[in-house]
């Protein structure tokens, strides 16, 4: 028996109705009676001492309610922003965590750093008043480039971090890797830059703080991917209010891609100021502020070496990376270039020994943290670029070289030398599928045809793996995480048989209202339109960890399944009582409870009603039908697959045209294939953006952000992208009840390496991302 709109059906999204009619409720759509507007005065300097701030003229400006500086917050006992993942350096010392005040106290360390917060009756008045604030800056020489920041003699950004070093971390077995290299027939070396990106969800961040002087309760409406974590940090570390007096609500959120995980200065200042002025205060970022302050992604400089034997088998892999953390450590910044990166350097391959070291440092730039993929795109980029380079060195077809080195499908569970245990996979099947989809063997003929037309043609693949379903709490705890990474759910039946599901996951485009409803519909036979999914409000849903790292279905969905199991268990007891049978004889399928071997049955709806109107009810059972569950995953999940890109390049202009894209992904079981495809499209588009178009640039001398708007930061637009060919394979994840793996980041992880491999294949030499026409043209035309 299968259920309409159940697991596996491409159900059209429930949430769409409000979005396509303009009835979504994004943060800036909300207003409160008596609301004032907040505006941040930001540093025009990349690095400067603050010698004094004169607010007198500004405070007297029309409409000003109040103006706050960093000293005011410190005097009020408000703590600094934190980084929640501790990293231990090679020498055993903890990572350097310099203070990070929401509003600068004695120095500014990147352009856009918050200096003062103006609250006024209108936004225009707040902006006008900010112009009257006089800040006495003593400009210092900035450094924005990570290699330069870590070099001797660089400007010292934080006293607490000598030489600007945040940590110097290692993973893997250095001695074993050195030994492997000593035996190698061939060593391939590669230098790579992973460009800095600006996440750019289309909805800019915003915050609306509301204080109830009667109850002492503070409510922060904010653009967050994880409202409970925001509440925890603001309460436990910033001391804004006790957790029970602080409510955080994330309404419809217009995209996140990681950038809305973090607890930022603006949100914390806004909620704090709302209490200070005893009025609702709203702050909405404009796009320019978003470029200056939303945590950036990537920014690695890497040297990698791959050792192979005479037969083309990999013997060892060495990776040395410098990671730019920006001016301050953002909420999870330290985890990204370490445990989300080094642990994935085995890729899909059997590599006997791996050694990785990462030096992370501070620069006078915007903080860098998780951006779609977070560490895993960086790892895949290193692995998959060097796989292609090595294949070239060895005169092998890159896909053959990969196939030769894949972990075989009977080797699971497979322990890598970088502390991951892969649970299931079949890499060759996915790669062969992608090759078929793109007609890999026909490439030579297509290339000849392009050449006849004066064009260069290239093909490139990337066989990526990621660790999703973040994460087993004990595992991440032992690696330095300050939190557990379980998820919560409550499944609550109403007496009339409709269901409300409360989830600690948070949807900001992923379609949870539909996917989660499908699970309920499938398991409990409830019409999908009678299922409501509630998320994003700390007063409504049980404490949850939120959505990132492609974890919502594998972890949040599993929590729902656990709650459903409890519902079923209780329902069986009620059914047994009502049908005068023993519990052991009750069978359950999709919300129908029957007595084995008879035609007696009751539906879930009838049982729920009986639970709320318990006139005839088991004496030892509580009335009501609501269950909650917390699910802590047993392992990460390991989505993997192959993407192959084919490009044609005009040597006269350097313009890269993506002529074909084939993706074969193993996401395990799939609840809604339509949504999964959409996630892959979006991920690939962001990966293509990174490879071809995007890149945050700073002026090295002044530290000014050069790519501060859509005029200078090149976002992928409809005419930059092709349509994609997408297919899936399936090795179900053995560690969660749904057998699902996570699909949100795969595209962004696979795409940059596949596309750059295709470009390098076409032009015959290495270049760095983004492969702009100018760069490609120069690579082709300079010899």
């Amino acid at each position, binding site marked *: 028996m299968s259920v309409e709109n159940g697991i596996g059906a491409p159900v*059209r*999204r429930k*949430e*769409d*109705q*409000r*979005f*396509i*009619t*303009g*009835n*979504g*409720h*994004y943060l*800036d*759509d909300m207003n409160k009676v008596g609301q004032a507007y907040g505006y941040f005065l930001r540093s025009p300097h990349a690095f400067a001492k603050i010698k004094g701030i004169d607010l007198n003229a500004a405070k007297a400006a029309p409409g000003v309610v109040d103006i706050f500086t960093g000293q005011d917050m410190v005097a009020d006992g408000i703590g600094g922003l934190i980084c929640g993942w501790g990293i231990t350096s090679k020498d055993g010392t903890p990572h350097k965590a310099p203070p990070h005040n929401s509003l600068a106290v004695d120095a500014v360390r990147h352009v856009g750093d918050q200096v003062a917060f103006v609250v006024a009756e209108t936004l*225009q008045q707040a902006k006008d008043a900010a112009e009257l604030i006089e800040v006495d800056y003593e400009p210092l020489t900035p450094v924005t480039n990570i290699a330069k920041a870590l070099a001797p003699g660089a400007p010292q950004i934080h006293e607490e971090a000598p030489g600007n070093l945040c940590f110097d971390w290692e993973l893997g077995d250095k001695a074993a890797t050195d030994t492997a290299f000593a035996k190698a027939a061939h060593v391939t070396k590669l230098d790579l830059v992973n460009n800095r990106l600006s996440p*750019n*969800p*289309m*909805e*800019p961040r915003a915050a609306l703080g509301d204080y109830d002087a009667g109850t002492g309760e503070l409510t922060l409406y904010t653009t967050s991917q994880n409202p409970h974590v925001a509440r925890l940090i603001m309460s436990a570390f910033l001391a804004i209010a006790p957790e029970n007096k602080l409510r955080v609500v994330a309404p*419809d*959120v*217009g*995209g996140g*891609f990681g950038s809305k995980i973090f607890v930022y200065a603006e949100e914390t200042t806004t909620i704090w100021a709302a209490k200070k002025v005893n009025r609702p205060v709203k702050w909405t970022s*404009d*796009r*320019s502020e978003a470029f200056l302050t939303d945590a950036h992604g990537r920014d690695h400089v890497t040297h990698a070496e791959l050792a192979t034997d005479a037969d083309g088998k990999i013997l060892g892999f060495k990776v040395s990376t410098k990671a730019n953390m920006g001016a301050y450590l953002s909420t999870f910044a330290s985890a990204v270039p370490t445990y989300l990166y080094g642990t994935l350097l085995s890729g899909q391959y059997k590599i006997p020994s791996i050694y990785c070291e990462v030096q992370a440092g501070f620069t006078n730039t915007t903080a860098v943290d998780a951006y779609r993929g977070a560490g895993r795109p960086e790892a895949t980029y290193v692995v998959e670029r060097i796989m292609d380079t090595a294949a070239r060195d060895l005169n092998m077809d890159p896909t053959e070289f990969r196939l030769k080195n894949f972990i075989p499908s009977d080797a699971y569970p497979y322990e890598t030398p970088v502390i991951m245990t892969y649970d299931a996979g079949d890499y060759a099947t996915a790669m062969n599928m992608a090759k078929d989809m793109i007609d890999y063997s026909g490439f030579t003929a297509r290339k000849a045809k392009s050449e006849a037309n004066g064009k260069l043609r290239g093909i490139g693949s990337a066989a990526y793996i990621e660790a999703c379903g973040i994460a087993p709490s004990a595992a991440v705890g032992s690696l330095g995480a300050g939190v557990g990474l379980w998820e919560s759910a409550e499944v609550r039946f109403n007496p009339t048989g409709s269901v409300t599901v409360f989830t600690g996951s948070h949807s*900001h*485009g*992923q*379609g949870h209202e539909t996917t989660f409803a499908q699970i309920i519909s499938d398991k409990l036979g409830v019409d999908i339109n009678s299922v409501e999914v509630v998320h994003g409000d700390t007063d409504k849903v049980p404490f949850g960890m939120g959505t990132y790292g492609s974890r919502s279905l594998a972890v949040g969905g599993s929590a729902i399944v656990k709650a459903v199991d409890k519902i079923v268990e209780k329902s069986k007891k009620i059914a047994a009582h009502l049908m005068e049978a023993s519990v052991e004889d009750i069978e359950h399928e999709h919300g129908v409870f029957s007595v084995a071997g008879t035609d007696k049955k009751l539906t879930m709806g009838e049982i729920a009603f009986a639970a709320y109107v318990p006139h005839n009810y088991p004496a030892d059972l509580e009335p009501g039908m609501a269950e909650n569950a917390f699910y802590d995953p047993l392992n990460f999940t390991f989505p993997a697959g192959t993407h192959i890109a084919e490009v044609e390049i005009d040597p006269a202009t350097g313009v890269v045209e993506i002529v074909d894209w084939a993706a074969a992904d193993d996401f395990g079981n799939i609840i809604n294939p*339509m*949504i999964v*495809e*959409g996630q892959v*499209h*979006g*991920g*690939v*588009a*962001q990966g293509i953006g990174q490879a071809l178009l995007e890149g945050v640039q700073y002026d090295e001398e002044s530290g000014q952000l050069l790519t501060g*708007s*859509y*005029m200078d930061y090149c*976002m*992928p*637009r*409809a*005419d930059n*992208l092709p*349509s*994609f060919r997408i297919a899936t394979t399936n090795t179900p994840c053995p560690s969660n009840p749904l057998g699902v793996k996570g699909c949100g980041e795969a*595209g962004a992880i696979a795409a940059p390496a596949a596309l750059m491999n295709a470009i390098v294949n076409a032009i015959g030499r290495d270049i760095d991302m983004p492969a702009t026409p100018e760069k490609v043209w120069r690579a082709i035309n300079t010899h």
Partner: protein
Amino acid sequence: MTTVSMTVNGKKVSADVAPNTLLVQFIRENLRLTGTHVGCDTSQCGACTVHVNGDSVKSCTMLALQAEGAEVKTIEGLAANGELHPMQAAFKENHGLQCGFCTPGMIMSAVDLVKRNPNPSEETIRTELEGNICRCTGYHNIVKSVKSAAENMGG
């Protein structure tokens, strides 16, 4: 303050606004029609797209006063008599949206695109939508939505 009057979604509206009020501000703040979004400050994302006298316009590039006497249509006015516009229906049917933030602007642009190109090719759709940024969908399903809507609209 100056008085501005126009017809928005078929209703006559009028308000006193500062002369530098943008049309998008007038729509969002004065009329509280919050389906029209603001995604940038350089007139490049298209999240604010509405129709002014039947043509799509980025409402952040225009002063409210410039729309004096005009017929303005926003996403809230697109469905007629409780029936979704074929473009809205096509976005839902083809998963042409994820977070939904770009969607109102995207749909308003797409309606105008199909009006001018009743039977658009994929290339035309991609070129025409160049002024609307979507960070979520990779455009694949947006293109599919517009194509299918054009067919349903009798192109």
